[in-house]
């Protein structure tokens, strides 16, 4: 197997496990970004350039920002610091790990046993034009549906996250209307 694949795989696994273990949320988020970059590299290595770059744009550009903003917005913790294995939850940790073990126990042997039709030699080439034709052709409906999903979910997310009630709103911004908050008592 090529050196690049092993390197990238190593990067992904290490950063992923570090991300999941680390106590500092920001660190785990940034480590996960590294995992995503590793994955993008893997896609490039596999020859799917377009997917690699879109993974870079969407995850590294977009999702990471959302995660980091979420982490920052939820900083004012009232209760216990982020401990990896809280004493109250030991049972949960063990049960969780057991479940994961069982799933792994299912996947790995299944993979080994499964008769996989392999194709030697260089991987298929995939040009952007080909992807364009596929997206605009058989998968056009899917593209439209994904468009709708994105719009709806983002508007929903906005509605959920944005502080709607008056007291949540920061002082200087009264809904961006520029109205002076002085006369708050007049019926809106």
């Amino acid at each position, binding site marked *: 197997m090529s050196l690049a694949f092993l390197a990238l795989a190593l990067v992904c696994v290490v950063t992923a496990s570090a991300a999941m273990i680390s106590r500092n949320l920001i660190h785990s988020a940034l480590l996960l970004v590294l995992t995503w970059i590793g994955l993008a590299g893997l896609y490039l290595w596999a020859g799917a350039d377009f997917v690699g770059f879109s993974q870079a744009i969407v995850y590294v550009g977009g999702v990471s920002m959302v995660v980091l903003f979420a982490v920052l917005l939820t900083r004012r913790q009232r209760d216990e610091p982020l401990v990896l294995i809280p004493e109250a939850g030991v049972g949960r940790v063990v049960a969780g790990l057991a479940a*994961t073990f069982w799933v792994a126990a299912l996947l790995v042997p299944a993979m080994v046993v499964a008769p996989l039709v392999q194709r030697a030699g260089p991987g298929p080439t995939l040009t952007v034009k080909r992807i364009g034709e596929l997206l605009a052709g058989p998968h056009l409906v899917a593209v439209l549906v994904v468009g709708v999903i994105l719009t709806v979910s983002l508007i929903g997310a906005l509605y959920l996250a944005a502080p709607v009630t008056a007291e949540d709103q920061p002082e200087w911004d009264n809904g961006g209307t520029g109205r002076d908050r002085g006369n708050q008592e007049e019926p809106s």
Partner: protein
Amino acid sequence: MTLSASLLWLIPATPLAASVFGLFAPRTARTLPIAGALLGLVAALGLSVAALAGALVDPAVRATSDFAWFTFGAQTLRLGWLLDPLAGFMCVLVTLIGLLVALFSTAYLRHDPRIGRFFGFLSLFVAAMLGLLVTNSLLLLFICWELVGLASYLLIGFWYERPAAAAAAKKAFITTRIGDLGFLIGLVWLHQATGSALFHDGGAGALDAPTLARLSSTLLPGGWAVSTAIGLLLFVGAAGKSGQFPLHVWLPDAMEGPTPVSALIHAATMVAAGVFLMARVFPLMAADQGLATVPFHALTGVAVIGAVTALLGAVLAVAQNDIKRVLAYSTVSQLGYMMLAIGVGSWVAAVFHLITHAFFKALLFLGAGSVIDATHHEQDLRRLGGLAGRMRVTFATFALGTGALMGLPFVFSGFWSKEAILHAAEGWTVSHLPFAAGLVGVVLTAFYMTRLVLEVFFGKARGEGAAHAEESPGLMRGPLVVLAVAAVGLGWLGLPNWPWLQTRLQGGDWPVHGLGEGFGLMVVSTALVLLGIGAGWWWYGRVKRTDARALDPLARSWPAVHAALAGRLWLDELYAATVGRAFAMLARVAAFFDRWVWGGAVEAAGRTAETVGQVNRAVDEDGLNAGFDNTSEHLRGSGRRYAKAQTGDAQSYLRVVAIGLAVVGVLLLWGGVR
């Protein structure tokens, strides 16, 4: 300009559209409905003339234009319009007389607040009548037939505030309805037998030769030909509408309606519808003529009924004291004549007489109307008299009408048309009864008409209405004059030596023979007319009654007979006694059944259901529930226990999912569950 068959529907459509103004206009509207009606009639007249011109181009051909009304399943019901000389002449007749009557009634009903509605009904009637005339389908004819019946009910009962008028309208409607029942059965039977609702459909129509041959050849159990049975049933409908013997009682009472209505509907057009129907379906009626084996021929029935009606009508007309009732009974008798003519096989003579009769009977009725209007609604002969001097034009036109009705020789149209009927009756091989009845009828007609003229126009004005009467306004006199001209002139269209009308109607050749050939019959009938006039003068002309309450001269000579005739041979009472009581009894039986038999059953069912309900509740309450309650209690307990498993902690759920996935996976892969 000729009107093609496909545009025939315009003729009934225009007055129908005009009727909308009258029917849906606000109650007090005047000018709009009147103008609408008149315009509708003028348009219909124009179209009818065009249609007639079209038909006369080639009288033999029957131009039809059919359309599919609606389809149910595989079959489509096709109706259509038919244009032939018969329809053409009848359309012109109806629209012309309708127009004249409409003009007359604008003056006659000028004080009536609901004149707008009157003209609405009038247009509706004319539309229905025209629809009936130009249709090529018996079903469409039946539809228009019903509409005409409705219009006549509305018009008879126009002054509905008078109970007599309302009763008369109901009576007219019910009796014609009885006739229509026969018509309906005949219609359905014909449709079932021939499979087509059309008269002439290129050979497949009900009246086309092949189907008629088939009909007349199929025999009923009693040996009757199917066509005979259907013919007679249709004749029952025609009898109802045209006031033939058993069903004529409604016509005299229909005089309760305004006089123009009587003129148009109960003289010229509607009552003629029955005769027109017979003329239209004549091939069907005559289909069984040739078959000797058939015990009874439809046409013989028609002829017998026609003769009886002609005689009865004439006899009853003699003893009536109301001017319009005399004319009503005269119409009944004349219709009898027409049916008699059809019965003896000459539908052309019947139609000829129908046309001439329509004109002079309309003239007589309008004349009577003019008299009634002038004498402030005085209709009783006993209180009229001496109007000749005051109402010159009315008297002159009325005299001409009377001449035409009686059949004064050579000059008047009535003479020629009645002559044609008598000629046909004379030649009838089956029996001479109709011919004899016809002759007696001629005498009686002459008698009661002279009585009428003498009583109304001569002698001394016996009522104060008659005393102050003046000639009626120009709008009433105009139509009278036109009708008078027609009453005189129309006869010349059907002379034996120049049968213009007959050849057109027959669509083929009509035997032309000189005046000499039927001259004998003419001399006899003229003699009879003179005899009648003489008798009339004898009783009523010689000694003029001066006092309204004086006894009728005829009553003085034959009191019993006169009393019987005045009482209209108590036919109404007879009907009431027989049919009336029978129905009453039938109604009582139905009421009994309804209340006790069905009512009882429903009552019983209701009560049993109630008891069953109570029993059920009892069993359910203490029987089953106890059982259910504790089991459900048991269930709720276990339910609560399981609820605890739902901890609300997302991750515990995920764990279960993961383990479940693993277990299922393992089973699928290695459990051998292939």
